[in-house]
């Protein structure tokens, strides 16, 4: 059913009896045209766009647990397109444009909130690098503003300008950046896909691929074999685990990234702020909690939980840059598994196995990419050609020396 002002009022007055399930719980069919493995943001978005934009009819999303239970439900909800490199920026800008129309598009209020993102600058070298980046953003049709220290202070006077160990010398702002209610993104795509006939099959674990003479015929699951013309992986941190069932080794490691939220507070900060001399970024949710994060713990992990030193490291940075949050309280911390790739950029590509496709390597940038990732993956699955903005996200870029290394850290995933 479509959500409308009228419907909302009617239901409110009649005890909400008329709301139905936001998506069905269908039994898997024996065969689909396209099976997407992974009921997270990217998988659900892919299904949604396949059905809506690419006229695909016979699609299933297979989820091991419950939809939206992975990184789309455990990230820090930031959207932005402030990338430097040609391989990335057009893609993320495409994603940001999709965010801007998303709620009307899938008729679900995901609370896209473009209150801006501000990257703080603490050294001249950093200003040079951010100048190059800001210019790259504008040259790619995105928005960027370079601020000096006074301008930053005027916007966020509560930051530490007085006795900072690493003084704030300016900032690179993207006004169209912001945050989105992350769970609602998964639910909105799920509902939209379901309404267009996509089967969302929860609690169904993929146990293997059926590959015959180099062609993928379908998947073995905890609920039996399901055939498909095309099988598409979108399982983020579990990518290596899943693709190993097709005897593939991937250019990536799985790492834990912790995220944090404080108790609810009356409005404190306007948009997203990132500290440039430590590991800390923060925004405030519509409920009032300060949502923040920092660096990954730094060791391979599938544990979805982190350790204390990283918690302290992140909070030290927070206190260093925002000493006025000292008397707020950390309410919850949690961990997600990041598919950290070898150059910090993702892969959306066919595999060497016919009919088997891959989407992953999002590091901790996956959430903001959700709409474009879904769209571009759908494009690849429907047309077998990469989308204009995702051409660089190839498997073979490492072998041939076309890395997309925003941070310049090289082939060490925990540094990206």
């Amino acid at each position, binding site marked *: 059913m479509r959500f409308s002002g009228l419907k909302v009022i009617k239901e409110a007055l009649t005890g909400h009896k008329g709301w139905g399930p936001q998506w069905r719980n269908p039994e898997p069919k024996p065969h689909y045209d396209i099976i997407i493995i992974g009921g997270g943001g990217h998988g659900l978005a892919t299904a949604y766009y396949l059905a809506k934009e690419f006229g695909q009819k016979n699609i299933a999303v297979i989820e091991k647990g419950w939809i939206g239970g992975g990184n789309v439900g455990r990230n820090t909800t930031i959207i932005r397109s402030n990338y430097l490199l040609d391989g990335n920026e057009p893609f993320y800008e495409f994603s940001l444009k999709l965010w801007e129309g998303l709620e009307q598009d899938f008729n679900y209020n995901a609370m896209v909130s473009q209150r801006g993102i501000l990257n703080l600058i603490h050294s001249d070298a950093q200003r040079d690098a951010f100048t190059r980046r800001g210019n790259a953003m504008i040259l790619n049709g995105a928005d960027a503003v370079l601020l000096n220290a006074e301008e930053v202070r005027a916007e966020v006077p509560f930051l530490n300008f007085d006795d900072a160990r690493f003084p704030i010398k300016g900032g690179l702002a993207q006004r169209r950046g912001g945050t989105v209610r992350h769970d609602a993104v998964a639910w909105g795509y799920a509902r939209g896909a379901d309404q267009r006939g996509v089967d969302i099959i929860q609690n169904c674990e993929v146990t293997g691929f059926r590959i015959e003479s180099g062609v993928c015929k379908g998947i073995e699951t905890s609920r039996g074999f399901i055939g498909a013309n095309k099988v598409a992986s979108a399982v983020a941190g579990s990518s290596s685990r899943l693709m190993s069932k097709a005897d593939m080794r991937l250019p990536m490691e799985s790492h834990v990234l912790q995220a944090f939220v404080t108790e609810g507070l009356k409005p404190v900060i306007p948009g997203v702020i990132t500290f440039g001399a430590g590991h800390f970024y923060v925004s405030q949710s519509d409920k009032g909690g300060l949502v923040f994060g920092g660096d990954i713990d730094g060791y*391979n992990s599938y544990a979805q939980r982190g350790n204390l030193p990283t918690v302290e490291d992140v909070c030290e940075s927070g206190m260093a840059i925002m000493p006025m949050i000292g008397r707020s309280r950390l309410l919850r911390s949690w961990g997600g598994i990041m598919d950290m790739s070898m150059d910090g950029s993702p892969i959306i590509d066919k595999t060497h196995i016919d009919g088997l496709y891959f989407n992953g390597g999002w590091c901790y940038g996956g959430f903001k990419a959700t709409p474009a990732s879904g769209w571009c993956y759908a494009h690849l699955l429907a047309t077998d050609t990469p989308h204009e903005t995702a051409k660089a996200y190839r498997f073979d870029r490492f072998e041939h020396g076309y890395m997309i290394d925003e941070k310049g850290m090289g082939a060490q*995933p925990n540094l990206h």
Partner: protein
Amino acid sequence: MIINHPILGPRDAQEFTYLGDASLINRPDWQADDAAKQFYDYQYLRDNPAGEHRELWFHEQGDRSWLVVTRNTVTHEISKVELASDVARKEGRSK
């Protein structure tokens, strides 16, 4: 986490710096016919297992030893810790 250093005993993992899969010890022969392919594989492809993982940690704030730590990536349980130089020799590396 606590890493049980073969010489120093239990140490807080915070004293260490992590590198990655211990396969990085096995640097290919630069003169092999398929050196390019081997180095690509060595540098970029990982097993990234959910379970036992042999990995390299550097005791940066300690005795500057590189260690090979066998750790379960699901439980974080550490089952074995060795000096990387011993492992390297065992695996045939010399000079």
